Protein backbone atom coordinates (compact mmCIF):
# COMPACT_ATOMS: atom_id res chain seq x y z
CA UNK A 1 0.00 0.00 0.00
CA UNK A 2 1.30 3.44 -0.92
CA UNK A 3 0.63 6.34 1.40
CA UNK A 4 -0.25 8.59 -1.47
CA UNK A 5 -2.73 10.77 0.33
CA UNK A 6 -1.95 13.91 2.27
CA UNK A 7 -2.14 13.38 6.04
CA UNK A 8 -2.37 15.82 8.93
CA UNK A 9 1.17 14.79 9.85
CA UNK A 10 2.38 16.44 6.66
CA UNK A 11 1.72 19.76 8.32
CA UNK A 12 4.19 18.83 11.03
CA UNK A 13 6.69 17.90 8.33
CA UNK A 14 6.19 21.24 6.63
CA UNK A 15 6.62 23.08 9.90
CA UNK A 16 9.81 21.15 10.60
CA UNK A 17 11.10 22.05 7.17
CA UNK A 18 10.17 25.68 7.70
CA UNK A 19 11.93 25.56 11.10
CA UNK A 20 15.14 24.29 9.52
CA UNK A 21 14.92 26.91 6.77
CA UNK A 22 14.33 29.74 9.24
CA UNK A 23 17.00 28.55 11.67
CA UNK A 24 19.52 28.35 8.88
CA UNK A 25 18.43 31.70 7.54
CA UNK A 26 18.69 33.43 10.92
CA UNK A 27 22.03 31.80 11.73
CA UNK A 28 23.61 32.65 8.38
CA UNK A 29 22.16 36.17 8.53
CA UNK A 30 23.76 36.87 11.91
CA UNK A 31 27.10 35.42 10.81
CA UNK A 32 26.90 37.02 7.37
CA UNK A 33 26.05 40.51 8.63
CA UNK A 34 28.82 40.34 11.22
CA UNK A 35 31.42 39.28 8.68
CA UNK A 36 30.13 41.82 6.14
CA UNK A 37 30.40 44.59 8.71
CA UNK A 38 33.92 43.54 9.72
CA UNK A 39 34.98 43.49 6.06
CA UNK A 40 33.53 46.96 5.52
CA UNK A 41 35.40 48.33 8.55
CA UNK A 42 38.69 46.71 7.47
CA UNK A 43 38.09 48.10 3.98
CA UNK A 44 37.39 51.56 5.44
CA UNK A 45 40.61 51.53 7.45
CA UNK A 46 42.60 50.65 4.33
CA UNK A 47 44.45 47.89 6.16
CA UNK A 48 47.45 47.28 3.89
CA UNK A 49 46.87 44.53 1.36
CA UNK A 50 43.33 43.80 2.55
CA UNK A 51 41.33 45.88 0.12
CA UNK A 52 42.10 43.95 -3.08
CA UNK A 53 41.59 40.61 -1.30
CA UNK A 54 38.24 41.65 0.15
CA UNK A 55 37.01 43.03 -3.16
CA UNK A 56 38.18 39.95 -5.07
CA UNK A 57 36.53 37.47 -2.69
CA UNK A 58 33.24 39.36 -2.35
CA UNK A 59 33.04 39.89 -6.10
CA UNK A 60 33.60 36.16 -6.65
CA UNK A 61 30.85 35.35 -4.14
CA UNK A 62 28.40 37.82 -5.63
CA UNK A 63 29.00 36.85 -9.24
CA UNK A 64 28.92 33.06 -9.13
CA UNK A 65 25.89 30.83 -8.60
CA UNK A 66 25.20 29.98 -4.98
CA UNK A 67 24.56 26.38 -6.04
CA UNK A 68 28.07 26.16 -7.47
CA UNK A 69 29.48 27.68 -4.26
CA UNK A 70 27.53 25.12 -2.29
CA UNK A 71 28.94 22.23 -4.36
CA UNK A 72 32.44 23.63 -4.01
CA UNK A 73 32.09 23.82 -0.24
CA UNK A 74 30.26 20.52 0.23
CA UNK A 75 32.08 18.33 -2.28
CA UNK A 76 35.17 20.28 -3.33
CA UNK A 77 36.66 21.45 -0.06
CA UNK A 78 36.29 18.11 1.82
CA UNK A 79 37.89 16.30 -1.12
CA UNK A 80 40.69 18.84 -1.38
CA UNK A 81 41.47 19.14 2.33
CA UNK A 82 40.51 15.59 3.29
CA UNK A 83 38.05 16.75 5.92
CA UNK A 84 34.47 15.80 6.62
CA UNK A 85 31.67 18.28 6.37
CA UNK A 86 28.00 17.76 7.15
CA UNK A 87 25.36 19.21 4.84
CA UNK A 88 24.32 21.68 7.55
CA UNK A 89 27.91 22.86 8.05
CA UNK A 90 28.42 23.29 4.32
CA UNK A 91 25.10 25.11 3.97
CA UNK A 92 25.84 27.41 6.92
CA UNK A 93 29.30 28.25 5.65
CA UNK A 94 28.19 28.91 2.08
CA UNK A 95 25.13 31.01 2.79
CA UNK A 96 26.90 32.97 5.54
CA UNK A 97 29.74 33.93 3.22
CA UNK A 98 27.34 34.74 0.43
CA UNK A 99 25.28 37.01 2.71
CA UNK A 100 28.53 38.54 3.99
CA UNK A 101 29.56 39.47 0.44
CA UNK A 102 26.30 41.30 -0.25
CA UNK A 103 26.20 42.87 3.22
CA UNK A 104 29.77 44.10 2.75
CA UNK A 105 28.75 46.00 -0.37
CA UNK A 106 25.82 47.63 1.44
CA UNK A 107 27.86 48.57 4.51
CA UNK A 108 30.68 49.89 2.34
CA UNK A 109 28.28 52.10 0.37
CA UNK A 110 26.75 53.22 3.66
CA UNK A 111 30.16 54.27 4.96
CA UNK A 112 31.04 55.94 1.67
CA UNK A 113 27.69 57.76 1.56
CA UNK A 114 28.80 60.02 4.43
CA UNK A 115 30.06 63.36 3.12
CA UNK A 116 33.81 63.88 3.09
CA UNK A 117 33.07 67.40 4.44
CA UNK A 118 31.74 66.13 7.74
CA UNK A 119 34.66 63.79 8.22
CA UNK A 120 37.06 66.67 7.57
CA UNK A 121 35.24 68.76 10.15
CA UNK A 122 35.54 65.97 12.71
CA UNK A 123 39.24 65.57 11.89
CA UNK A 124 39.91 69.26 12.29
CA UNK A 125 38.23 69.22 15.69
CA UNK A 126 40.64 66.53 16.76
CA UNK A 127 38.52 63.39 16.66
CA UNK A 128 40.45 60.19 15.96
CA UNK A 129 39.61 57.70 13.23
CA UNK A 130 37.71 55.30 15.46
CA UNK A 131 35.75 58.15 17.06
CA UNK A 132 34.82 59.44 13.61
CA UNK A 133 33.78 55.97 12.47
CA UNK A 134 31.71 55.32 15.58
CA UNK A 135 30.13 58.73 16.15
CA UNK A 136 29.92 60.40 12.76
CA UNK A 137 29.93 57.67 10.12
CA UNK A 138 28.23 54.67 11.76
CA UNK A 139 24.84 56.22 12.64
CA UNK A 140 24.44 57.62 9.14
CA UNK A 141 25.74 54.47 7.44
CA UNK A 142 23.35 52.34 9.51
CA UNK A 143 20.36 54.43 8.51
CA UNK A 144 21.48 54.21 4.89
CA UNK A 145 21.90 50.42 5.04
CA UNK A 146 18.59 49.24 6.52
CA UNK A 147 16.54 49.36 3.31
CA UNK A 148 19.05 47.61 1.01
CA UNK A 149 19.80 45.00 3.71
CA UNK A 150 16.14 44.03 4.02
CA UNK A 151 16.04 43.53 0.26
CA UNK A 152 19.12 41.32 0.35
CA UNK A 153 17.82 39.24 3.25
CA UNK A 154 14.47 38.61 1.57
CA UNK A 155 16.45 37.26 -1.36
CA UNK A 156 18.78 35.20 0.83
CA UNK A 157 15.81 33.56 2.53
CA UNK A 158 14.86 32.12 -0.84
CA UNK A 159 18.42 31.23 -1.71
CA UNK A 160 18.39 28.87 1.28
CA UNK A 161 16.13 26.55 -0.75
CA UNK A 162 19.27 25.48 -2.65
CA UNK A 163 20.63 23.68 0.38
CA UNK A 164 18.01 20.95 -0.10
CA UNK A 165 20.18 19.75 -2.98
CA UNK A 166 22.99 18.67 -0.64
CA UNK A 167 20.57 16.93 1.69
CA UNK A 168 19.59 19.45 4.34
CA UNK A 169 16.00 18.79 5.41
CA UNK A 170 14.76 22.30 4.81
CA UNK A 171 11.36 23.34 3.50
CA UNK A 172 12.24 22.56 -0.12
CA UNK A 173 13.56 19.12 0.79
CA UNK A 174 10.31 18.38 2.60
CA UNK A 175 8.52 19.50 -0.54
CA UNK A 176 10.56 17.01 -2.50
CA UNK A 177 9.66 14.20 -0.11
CA UNK A 178 5.96 15.03 -0.15
CA UNK A 179 6.02 15.28 -3.92
CA UNK A 180 7.61 11.88 -4.36
CA UNK A 181 5.11 10.32 -2.02
CA UNK A 182 1.92 11.93 -3.25
CA UNK A 183 2.84 12.56 -6.89
CA UNK A 184 0.88 15.79 -6.63
CA UNK A 185 3.53 18.31 -7.71
CA UNK A 186 1.10 21.11 -8.40
CA UNK A 187 -0.35 21.11 -4.91
CA UNK A 188 2.94 20.42 -3.13
CA UNK A 189 4.99 23.10 -4.87
CA UNK A 190 2.16 25.60 -4.71
CA UNK A 191 2.00 25.11 -0.94
CA UNK A 192 5.79 25.24 -0.53
CA UNK A 193 5.92 28.35 -2.69
CA UNK A 194 3.17 29.95 -0.64
CA UNK A 195 5.02 29.27 2.61
CA UNK A 196 8.20 30.87 1.23
CA UNK A 197 6.11 33.74 0.00
CA UNK A 198 4.53 34.29 3.40
CA UNK A 199 7.89 34.05 5.16
CA UNK A 200 9.48 36.49 2.74
CA UNK A 201 6.55 38.89 2.99
CA UNK A 202 6.66 38.75 6.80
CA UNK A 203 10.37 39.50 6.69
CA UNK A 204 9.94 42.37 4.24
CA UNK A 205 7.08 43.72 6.31
CA UNK A 206 9.13 43.55 9.51
CA UNK A 207 12.04 45.24 7.70
CA UNK A 208 9.68 47.93 6.46
CA UNK A 209 8.44 48.54 9.98
CA UNK A 210 11.96 48.81 11.33
CA UNK A 211 12.78 51.29 8.59
CA UNK A 212 9.63 53.29 9.31
CA UNK A 213 10.39 53.32 13.04
CA UNK A 214 13.91 54.49 12.27
CA UNK A 215 12.57 57.20 10.02
CA UNK A 216 10.27 58.39 12.77
CA UNK A 217 12.99 58.42 15.42
CA UNK A 218 15.63 59.81 13.08
CA UNK A 219 14.54 63.39 12.71
CA UNK A 220 17.52 64.50 10.68
CA UNK A 221 16.12 63.14 7.43
CA UNK A 222 18.97 60.72 6.79
CA UNK A 223 16.85 57.92 5.34
Amino acid at each position, binding site marked *: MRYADFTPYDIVLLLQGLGVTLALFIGTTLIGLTIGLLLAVVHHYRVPGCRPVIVLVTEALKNSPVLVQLFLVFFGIPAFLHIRMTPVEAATLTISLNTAAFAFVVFRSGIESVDRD*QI*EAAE*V*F*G*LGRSQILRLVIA*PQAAAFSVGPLVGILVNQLQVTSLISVIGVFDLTKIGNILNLRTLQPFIVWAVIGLIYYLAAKTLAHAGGRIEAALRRSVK*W*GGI
Partner: protein
Amino acid sequence: MIVAENVEKRFGDALVLKRVNLRVEPGEVVTILGASGSGKSTLIRCINGLEALTGGRITVDGHDVSTKAGLVAARRASATVFQLFNLYPHMTALGNITLAPIEVLKLPKAEAEARARALLDKVGLGAQADAYPQQLSGGQRQRVGICRALAMQPRYLLLDEVTSALDPEMTGDVLRILAELAADGTTMVFVTHEIEFARHISSRIVFLEQGELIVDLPTAAFFAEDGGLAVPRIRQFLSKMKKD
Protein backbone atom coordinates in the same frame (compact mmCIF):
# COMPACT_ATOMS: atom_id res chain seq x y z
CA MET B 1 51.33 82.45 16.86
CA ILE B 2 50.67 80.90 13.46
CA VAL B 3 53.74 80.96 11.24
CA ALA B 4 53.81 79.91 7.61
CA GLU B 5 57.26 79.81 6.05
CA ASN B 6 57.83 79.35 2.33
CA VAL B 7 54.68 77.27 2.12
CA GLU B 8 54.25 75.45 -1.14
CA LYS B 9 51.28 73.31 -2.16
CA ARG B 10 51.14 71.36 -5.37
CA PHE B 11 48.16 69.41 -6.71
CA GLY B 12 49.68 67.29 -9.45
CA ASP B 13 51.18 69.78 -11.87
CA ALA B 14 49.32 72.77 -10.45
CA LEU B 15 51.24 74.91 -7.99
CA VAL B 16 48.50 76.34 -5.80
CA LEU B 17 50.63 78.03 -3.15
CA LYS B 18 54.05 79.48 -3.98
CA ARG B 19 56.47 80.25 -1.14
CA VAL B 20 53.83 81.85 1.04
CA ASN B 21 54.98 83.54 4.23
CA LEU B 22 52.50 84.63 6.87
CA ARG B 23 52.56 85.34 10.60
CA VAL B 24 49.48 85.73 12.74
CA GLU B 25 50.07 87.02 16.27
CA PRO B 26 47.58 86.42 19.08
CA GLY B 27 44.91 89.15 19.06
CA GLU B 28 45.19 89.86 15.36
CA VAL B 29 42.45 89.54 12.79
CA VAL B 30 44.12 88.76 9.49
CA THR B 31 42.00 88.74 6.37
CA ILE B 32 43.11 86.84 3.31
CA LEU B 33 41.76 88.37 0.11
CA GLY B 34 42.17 87.16 -3.44
CA ALA B 35 40.27 86.01 -6.48
CA SER B 36 38.64 82.58 -6.62
CA GLY B 37 41.30 79.96 -7.16
CA SER B 38 44.06 82.15 -5.74
CA GLY B 39 44.77 79.60 -3.01
CA LYS B 40 43.04 81.25 -0.02
CA SER B 41 41.09 78.21 1.07
CA THR B 42 44.03 75.94 0.39
CA LEU B 43 46.14 78.05 2.76
CA ILE B 44 43.53 77.59 5.52
CA ARG B 45 43.38 73.87 4.77
CA CYS B 46 47.15 73.71 5.10
CA ILE B 47 47.03 75.45 8.47
CA ASN B 48 44.44 73.02 9.87
CA GLY B 49 46.18 70.03 8.35
CA LEU B 50 43.51 68.99 5.85
CA GLU B 51 46.08 69.36 3.08
CA ALA B 52 49.67 68.18 3.42
CA LEU B 53 52.31 70.72 2.44
CA THR B 54 54.56 69.92 -0.48
CA GLY B 55 57.12 72.46 0.69
CA GLY B 56 57.87 74.87 3.53
CA ARG B 57 56.60 74.72 7.07
CA ILE B 58 53.59 75.78 9.13
CA THR B 59 53.65 75.97 12.90
CA VAL B 60 50.84 76.84 15.28
CA ASP B 61 52.19 77.93 18.65
CA GLY B 62 55.40 76.17 17.66
CA HIS B 63 53.70 72.89 16.72
CA ASP B 64 54.66 71.75 13.23
CA VAL B 65 51.49 70.64 11.44
CA SER B 66 53.41 68.23 9.21
CA THR B 67 54.28 66.00 12.17
CA LYS B 68 51.68 63.74 13.71
CA ALA B 69 52.05 65.00 17.28
CA GLY B 70 52.42 68.57 16.05
CA LEU B 71 49.18 68.37 14.09
CA VAL B 72 47.27 67.09 17.11
CA ALA B 73 48.54 70.01 19.20
CA ALA B 74 48.01 72.52 16.37
CA ARG B 75 44.44 71.34 15.90
CA ARG B 76 43.85 71.76 19.61
CA ALA B 77 44.95 75.38 19.35
CA SER B 78 42.77 76.32 16.39
CA ALA B 79 39.21 75.72 15.23
CA THR B 80 37.75 76.01 11.76
CA VAL B 81 34.45 77.35 10.46
CA PHE B 82 33.66 76.02 6.98
CA GLN B 83 32.07 77.59 3.94
CA LEU B 84 29.43 74.86 3.67
CA PHE B 85 29.08 74.51 7.47
CA ASN B 86 30.01 70.78 7.43
CA LEU B 87 27.68 70.05 10.34
CA TYR B 88 26.90 66.46 11.34
CA PRO B 89 23.35 65.99 10.00
CA HIS B 90 22.41 63.24 12.47
CA MET B 91 23.12 65.39 15.51
CA THR B 92 21.21 68.32 16.94
CA ALA B 93 22.77 71.76 17.16
CA LEU B 94 23.71 70.89 20.71
CA GLY B 95 25.15 67.53 19.64
CA ASN B 96 27.21 69.17 16.92
CA ILE B 97 28.68 71.64 19.36
CA THR B 98 29.37 69.23 22.22
CA LEU B 99 30.81 66.31 20.22
CA ALA B 100 34.45 67.41 20.18
CA PRO B 101 34.44 68.96 23.69
CA ILE B 102 33.16 65.66 25.11
CA GLU B 103 35.24 63.32 22.94
CA VAL B 104 38.44 65.31 22.54
CA LEU B 105 38.60 67.65 25.54
CA LYS B 106 36.94 64.97 27.71
CA LEU B 107 34.59 67.50 29.29
CA PRO B 108 31.72 66.04 31.32
CA LYS B 109 28.57 65.99 29.18
CA ALA B 110 26.65 68.37 31.44
CA GLU B 111 29.43 70.94 31.38
CA ALA B 112 29.85 70.68 27.62
CA GLU B 113 26.11 71.15 27.13
CA ALA B 114 25.94 74.10 29.49
CA ARG B 115 28.73 75.77 27.56
CA ALA B 116 27.09 74.94 24.24
CA ARG B 117 23.79 76.42 25.37
CA ALA B 118 25.53 79.58 26.48
CA LEU B 119 27.17 79.88 23.06
CA LEU B 120 23.88 79.26 21.27
CA ASP B 121 22.24 81.96 23.40
CA LYS B 122 25.02 84.33 22.45
CA VAL B 123 24.38 83.85 18.71
CA GLY B 124 20.61 84.05 19.13
CA LEU B 125 19.89 80.34 18.71
CA GLY B 126 19.02 79.47 22.30
CA ALA B 127 15.68 78.04 21.19
CA GLN B 128 17.22 75.89 18.46
CA ALA B 129 19.50 73.75 20.63
CA ASP B 130 17.57 70.59 19.84
CA ALA B 131 17.02 71.29 16.15
CA TYR B 132 18.79 69.23 13.50
CA PRO B 133 20.81 71.00 10.79
CA GLN B 134 18.14 70.03 8.26
CA GLN B 135 15.63 72.12 10.23
CA LEU B 136 17.80 75.24 10.30
CA SER B 137 18.35 77.95 7.71
CA GLY B 138 21.78 78.46 6.19
CA GLY B 139 22.54 81.38 8.44
CA GLN B 140 21.45 79.45 11.51
CA ARG B 141 23.59 76.49 10.45
CA GLN B 142 26.61 78.70 10.09
CA ARG B 143 26.01 80.20 13.53
CA VAL B 144 25.95 76.65 14.88
CA GLY B 145 29.21 76.10 12.98
CA ILE B 146 30.71 79.11 14.74
CA CYS B 147 29.51 77.84 18.13
CA ARG B 148 31.01 74.44 17.37
CA ALA B 149 34.36 76.11 16.74
CA LEU B 150 34.15 78.37 19.80
CA ALA B 151 33.22 75.46 22.06
CA MET B 152 36.76 74.18 21.61
CA GLN B 153 38.02 77.44 23.16
CA PRO B 154 40.54 77.83 20.37
CA ARG B 155 43.37 80.34 20.43
CA TYR B 156 42.88 80.81 16.69
CA LEU B 157 39.70 80.83 14.70
CA LEU B 158 40.09 79.87 11.03
CA LEU B 159 37.20 81.10 8.89
CA ASP B 160 37.00 79.76 5.35
CA GLU B 161 34.57 81.88 3.30
CA VAL B 162 31.98 81.44 6.01
CA THR B 163 29.40 83.70 4.40
CA SER B 164 29.86 82.70 0.75
CA ALA B 165 26.93 80.27 0.81
CA LEU B 166 24.55 82.69 2.56
CA ASP B 167 22.15 85.33 1.32
CA PRO B 168 22.82 88.95 2.31
CA GLU B 169 20.47 88.96 5.29
CA MET B 170 21.94 85.80 6.77
CA THR B 171 25.41 87.09 5.98
CA GLY B 172 24.63 90.11 8.15
CA ASP B 173 23.73 87.90 11.12
CA VAL B 174 26.94 85.92 10.84
CA LEU B 175 29.14 88.97 10.31
CA ARG B 176 27.67 90.68 13.40
CA ILE B 177 28.76 87.70 15.48
CA LEU B 178 32.24 87.74 13.97
CA ALA B 179 32.54 91.45 14.66
CA GLU B 180 31.71 90.82 18.32
CA LEU B 181 34.31 88.08 18.47
CA ALA B 182 36.89 90.37 16.91
CA ALA B 183 36.03 93.07 19.42
CA ASP B 184 36.53 90.53 22.22
CA GLY B 185 40.07 90.00 21.00
CA THR B 186 39.60 86.62 19.28
CA THR B 187 42.47 85.84 16.93
CA MET B 188 41.14 85.13 13.47
CA VAL B 189 42.36 84.15 10.06
CA PHE B 190 39.57 85.16 7.80
CA VAL B 191 39.17 84.18 4.17
CA THR B 192 36.39 86.25 2.66
CA HIS B 193 34.99 88.23 -0.22
CA GLU B 194 33.27 90.70 2.13
CA ILE B 195 35.73 93.52 1.63
CA GLU B 196 33.92 96.23 3.52
CA PHE B 197 33.52 93.94 6.48
CA ALA B 198 37.15 92.87 6.33
CA ARG B 199 38.07 96.53 6.39
CA HIS B 200 36.12 97.03 9.62
CA ILE B 201 37.35 94.08 11.61
CA SER B 202 40.82 93.25 10.28
CA SER B 203 44.06 94.39 11.78
CA ARG B 204 45.89 93.23 8.69
CA ILE B 205 45.02 92.23 5.16
CA VAL B 206 47.04 89.98 2.91
CA PHE B 207 46.39 89.45 -0.77
CA LEU B 208 46.94 86.20 -2.61
CA GLU B 209 47.37 86.23 -6.38
CA GLN B 210 47.68 82.87 -8.15
CA GLY B 211 49.19 81.26 -5.09
CA GLU B 212 51.59 84.07 -4.27
CA LEU B 213 51.16 86.34 -1.30
CA ILE B 214 51.83 89.66 -3.00
CA VAL B 215 50.76 92.13 -0.30
CA ASP B 216 50.72 91.98 3.50
CA LEU B 217 49.72 95.31 5.07
CA PRO B 218 47.92 96.75 8.09
CA THR B 219 44.31 97.37 7.11
CA ALA B 220 44.55 101.17 6.87
CA ALA B 221 47.64 100.92 4.71
CA PHE B 222 46.04 98.28 2.48
CA PHE B 223 43.26 100.68 1.54
CA ALA B 224 45.56 103.71 1.29
CA GLU B 225 46.34 105.29 -2.07
CA ASP B 226 50.05 104.99 -1.42
CA GLY B 227 49.70 101.51 0.10
CA GLY B 228 47.70 98.60 -1.26
CA LEU B 229 45.88 100.70 -3.83
CA ALA B 230 49.22 101.58 -5.38
CA VAL B 231 49.43 97.95 -6.50
CA PRO B 232 47.54 97.80 -9.84
CA ARG B 233 46.25 94.27 -9.29
CA ILE B 234 44.73 95.19 -5.93
CA ARG B 235 43.16 98.37 -7.26
CA GLN B 236 41.63 96.33 -10.06
CA PHE B 237 40.42 93.64 -7.65
CA LEU B 238 38.85 96.11 -5.21
CA SER B 239 37.07 98.12 -7.88
CA LYS B 240 35.70 94.96 -9.38
CA MET B 241 34.44 93.70 -6.01
CA LYS B 242 32.74 97.03 -5.31
CA LYS B 243 30.84 96.87 -8.57
CA ASP B 244 29.47 93.40 -7.72
